[in-house]
């Protein structure tokens, strides 16, 4: 766990370490967390590296406190992050909702492990896809990104911070135990090679600033504590000035706007990686560590004359309907392998509407889905 500057170098890192490098490259200056397997290395490396870069690491008393602290830090101007696993992620949900409603940019990494409850702490799973979308109460939009490799962990963490800042929203990174702990060689880019987005700050005189005023982007400029733009931040539904409201003519425009700021920017947020998909007859839709088994399986299937292709989902929420629909219209069948009882496959079926056959391949025993398992199924379809 060196503290040396590794930008521009080839390094051997595990996924969790690459998440830290990505966060620091994106400008993260504040991290609050609570130890939990298999996410702990993120806290450990942050505690070493952040102070050296002038940032702050704090180990809080629990995950609820960690989530509260990163919201507070973001409101005071820091790019902030926390990292946890399923049980801790459950605890963060209420404050995550606060970040959605108060429009506070921050990044939450959930390194998924087997569940429910304490579940299978050291085993891989993908059971938190729906929790990431619907874990907190009420209607709100959210951005959820899934990582599948060490390189992803770096690149997607940078993207997560950029999206959080751009849209003033929490962004969740779903990693999993295999991605987190697999060591791979990656090249850390130089800072000048990385696109970093910062939140838009108000530039009008403070007395003109209306903190939650709608604009064409649906994302108001964000005043931070101490910069002269004093306003009220609350988890209550608020008017454009930030004060609690119960007026229907203020509630509806507000909730509509926070949905719209994500929905009207779908194509900026949606990320997928495709392979051999152009002429595919059978499409595998996968994400996280399973996407890597799927990639191998698709290549093997091609060698055996099966026209298989892969769409790897990086953005899980908002669900990439617009990207998947053309495939669903075209291919003979879709296979969705995942390490749960069928959380993404259910979403695929929802948007499929009878266009094609949707097959599932699920594993819930805490072990990886192997390329062979996916290949076997591909050969049978």
């Amino acid at each position, binding site marked *: 766990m*060196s*503290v*040396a*500057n590794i930008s521009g170098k080839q390094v051997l890192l595990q996924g969790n370490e690459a998440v830290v490098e990505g966060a620091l490259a994106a400008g993260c*200056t*504040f991290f*609050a967390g609570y130890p939990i397997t298999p996410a702990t290395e993120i806290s450990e490396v942050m505690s*070493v*590296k952040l*102070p*050296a870069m*002038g940032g*702050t690491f*704090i180990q*809080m*008393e*629990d995950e*609820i*406190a*960690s*989530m*509260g*602290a*990163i*919201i*507070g*830090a*973001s*409101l*005071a*101007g*820091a790019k*902030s992050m926390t990292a946890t696993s399923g049980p801790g992620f459950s605890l963060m949900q*209420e*404050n995550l909702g*606060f970040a959605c409603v108060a429009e506070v940019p921050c990044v939450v990494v959930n390194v998924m492990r087997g569940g429910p409850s304490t579940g299978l702490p050291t085993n891989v799973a993908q059971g938190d896809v729906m929790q990431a979308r619907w874990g907190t109460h009420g209607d709100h939009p959210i951005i959820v990104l899934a990582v599948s490799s060490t390189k992803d962990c770096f690149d997607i963490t940078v993207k997560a911070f950029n999206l959080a800042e751009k849209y003033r929203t929490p962004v969740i990174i779903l990693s999993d135990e295999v991605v987190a702990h697999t060591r791979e060689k990656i090249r850390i880019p130089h800072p000048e090679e990385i696109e970093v987005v910062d939140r838009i700050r108000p530039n009008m005189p403070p007395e003109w600033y209306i903190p939650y005023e709608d604009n064409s982007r649906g994302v108001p400029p964000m005043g931070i*504590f*101490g*910069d*002269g733009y*004093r*306003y*009220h*931040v*609350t*988890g*209550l539904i608020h008017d454009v*000035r930030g*004060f*609690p409201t119960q007026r229907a003519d203020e509630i509806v425009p507000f909730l509509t706007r926070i949905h719209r700021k994500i929905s009207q920017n779908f194509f900026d947020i949606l990320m997928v990686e495709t392979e051999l998909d152009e002429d595919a007859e059978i499409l595998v839709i996968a994400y996280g560590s399973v996407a890597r088994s799927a990639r191998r399986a698709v290549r093997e299937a091609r060698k055996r004359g099966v026209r298989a292709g892969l769409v790897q989902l990086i953005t899980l929420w908002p669900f990439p309907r617009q990207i998947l629909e053309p495939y669903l219209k075209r291919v003979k069948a879709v296979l969705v392998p995942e390490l749960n009882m069928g959380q993404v496959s259910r979403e695929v079926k929802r948007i499929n509407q009878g266009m094609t056959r949707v097959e599932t391949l699920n594993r819930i025993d805490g072990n990886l889905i192997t390329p062979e398992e996916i290949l076997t199924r591909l050969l049978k379809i």
Partner: protein
Amino acid sequence: MNVRHSMAEVTKLIHKYLRHDKKFPHVWCPGCGNGILLGALIRAIDRTGYEKDDIVLVSGIGCAGRLPVYVDFNTLHTTHGRALTFATGVKLANPRLQVIVIMGDGDATAIGGNHFIHAARRNLNLTAIIVNNNIYGMTGGQYSPTTPYGALATTAVYRHIEQSFSIAELAVTAGASMVARGTVYHATMLDRLIEQAIRKRGFSVVEVISHCHTQYGRRNKLGGAVDMLRWQKENAVRVEKAAKMSEEELAGKFTIGVLVDRDLPIYTEEYRKIREAARSRMAAVK
């Protein structure tokens, strides 16, 4: 020592600090102690000389949690019990900000009890003001961790059988740098205690004994707001005087004043040393 304000001065303070054109009337019941606390807080902040932009007022959920809405600072109304965690993030991200946290007794010591003891232990340079009215007021009068043994509440209609916390003593034990207790009856003293707490370097706590005549007083036949204020007057004993009194004389009374004032390492200053150590280690690796 008492600083008295003329009406003109009070009006000036109101115009300077209250969001008077936006958010009044307030949500509190007539006679509630929160209004007195709000006045004391504004006077205390005014005397410390901090600019409005330097102050961040954080609160949890409940009657006391609504206080920041009315005051023109950077204000943050958080989730129930979690005010201190948000405040921790604010303070660490920008240590120059003066962070003041307003909580109720249920907010701070039930759902937020864990955060409270750890914030005290950690000793960030924050001020926590805890309004203790012995009940959950906003949700309609359920018992809280400070509801006295034997009292009545909507969730204790057969009488309360739990022992109550002493918030201030809990803060002393948990390691806060400064701990004080005041009442809304002793309003000028409250000004001074809050002022001292804001000026204090380290985690400072002011427990404010208040009254909920609507939910607690009425149910327990303690009279109206005036009767409950009179109770505060008659049962509060200054710590200096209490030191000379016997246990029998102190039975049923509570102390007011500064309970502890000590200098302990401050988190943000300690963390600055961590940064220096980390930088020199990084330089050594290069």
